[in-house]
């Protein structure tokens, strides 16, 4: 890993609100060209981290550098290299689509009118439509169009899925995939709907209680985590969550148990406790692994 490839560097980040310490020494880096997911449950410190990354919060301790500059003191040059998508797809919603383009064009010399026009064509709305009169999904497309057209090299996308239905979430990621992978852009993304990002993210950091719980390529996050289904008539009252049993869920058809036990180990374990021989392994999703690692509460 060379320093020049590091776009975002977070080291020893600490922050408190009053007496409540929300970040307790957070460390991670984002390399050039990577799509990096920042995950955490509510209250894990994700929003605080994003606010610091975006430069809207000064941390008590530690450094958050983007392109080698403090995120809260970015030069104009680096600001134009970084695109921010704010939670809720905030935009100047008092502007029309035409005014939005005219406004941003003045700030970004590399503005790509063709890219903006592509998104607008997909939206199929008149240019004089005000953003405040659009749906949440349409607003998300406008926000994305602005980010893409300004030619930002690095994107920080905070909870892109907020308020979007499944179709618009998929559309958002499709567009992102199309533009990002072609142009070797670097992305740091968060979402409350973690399964959306499974097909998109290269690397992930999971934070819990203000600390990094796990940082790894997404393909490795699920390593050593297994899922098994037990029939609903199995007696699971003696199965307790511990280092081996990470999570127990009930679906309408079965119990789903996420564990660190291999198939052989789990057969012995479950048969001994539940007397059930009907143990069906299944592939855990990223969301399963995330919940197993961070817990439901």
């Amino acid at each position, binding site marked *: 890993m060379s320093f020049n490839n590091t776009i975002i560097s977070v080291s020893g980040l600490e922050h408190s609100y009053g007496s409540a310490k929300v970040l307790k020494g957070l460390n991670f880096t984002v390399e050039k060209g990577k799509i990096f997911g920042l995950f955490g449950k509510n209250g894990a410190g994700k929003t605080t981290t994003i606010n610091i990354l975006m430069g809207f919060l000064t941390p008590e301790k530690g450094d958050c550098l983007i392109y080698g500059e403090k995120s809260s003191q970015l030069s104009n040059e680096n600001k134009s290299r970084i695109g921010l998508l*704010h939670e809720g797809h905030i935009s100047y919603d008092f502007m029309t689509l035409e005014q939005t383009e005219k406004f941003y064009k003045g700030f970004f010399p590399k503005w790509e009118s063709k890219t903006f026009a592509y998104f607008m064509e997909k939206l199929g709305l008149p240019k004089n439509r005000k953003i405040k009169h659009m749906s949440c999904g349409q607003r998300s497309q406008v926000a994305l169009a602005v980010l893409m057209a300004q030619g930002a090299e690095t994107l920080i996308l905070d909870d892109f899925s907020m308020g979007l239905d499944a179709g618009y979430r998929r559309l958002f990621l499709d567009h992102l995939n199309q533009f990002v992978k072609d142009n070797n852009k670097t992305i740091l993304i968060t979402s409350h709907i973690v399964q959306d990002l499974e097909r998109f993210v290269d690397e992930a950091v999971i934070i819990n209680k203000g600390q990094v719980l796990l940082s790894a390529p997404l393909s490795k996050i699920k390593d050593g985590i297994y899922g098994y289904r037990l029939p609903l008539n199995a007696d699971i009252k003696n199965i307790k969550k511990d280092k081996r049993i990470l999570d127990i869920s009930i679906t309408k058809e079965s119990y789903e148990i996420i564990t660190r036990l291999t198939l052989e180990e789990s057969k012995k374990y479950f048969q001994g406790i539940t007397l059930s021989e009907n143990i069906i392994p299944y592939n855990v999703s990223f969301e399963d692994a995330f919940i197993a690692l961070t817990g439901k509460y």
Partner: protein
Amino acid sequence: MKHIFYKEKIKLNRILLAVIIINAAVLIYTFFRVRVGIMLNEPSGIWLDIILRNGIFYSKVETALYVSALLLGVMQFYPEFERKRFRLSCHLPLNEYKMIFYTSLFGIIVLTVLWLIDMAGVVLLASQFFPIDIYRAIPLVMFYWYINSLIIYTFASSLTLEASWNVKLRLALMMAGCIWAFKMEVYNSSLSYAVTAFLFAVFYCFSIYFPALRFRKGL
């Protein structure tokens, strides 16, 4: 600067129209009020009112200017405060200090233009009915109103942009003290006093940086 002005113009489109209507309506009202007053009263009564009771026949213009300042301050910064939209402005590839300065400058320019139009209107109106001795002091009196309107504009915009209610309250108390200090019944005609008051108002305008930078840095 022109791009920030472009945004502010779009944002304030209707408000600009509203303040123009308010001020024009007040000028027209003042014109008819004076006209009717002169028609219905003895000239000596009007003279007594102006000289002895220190009556200002165009006092409604003062209210219009202050209402305009208040409206501009709130409506210019509320959309920035709402849903933390100010973050978009802060991330524009433009020095943040300049961005804040240009944003405020737009409001101040609008206010200045309004004041100049009001003053021209009042002087023109007065010249129709009164001797120059009566309306000679109008620019001076209205200059102090202009200073007050700058202070009200800054007060309104700073309070609107400040996110914390606790800080907003403290800011309100401090800034309201300044408004009170500038409220006057007798207008000092000394040039040095007027210049000092103006310079104070200019410095006061920079207090918008306090909530703006708090917003930016999350302090």
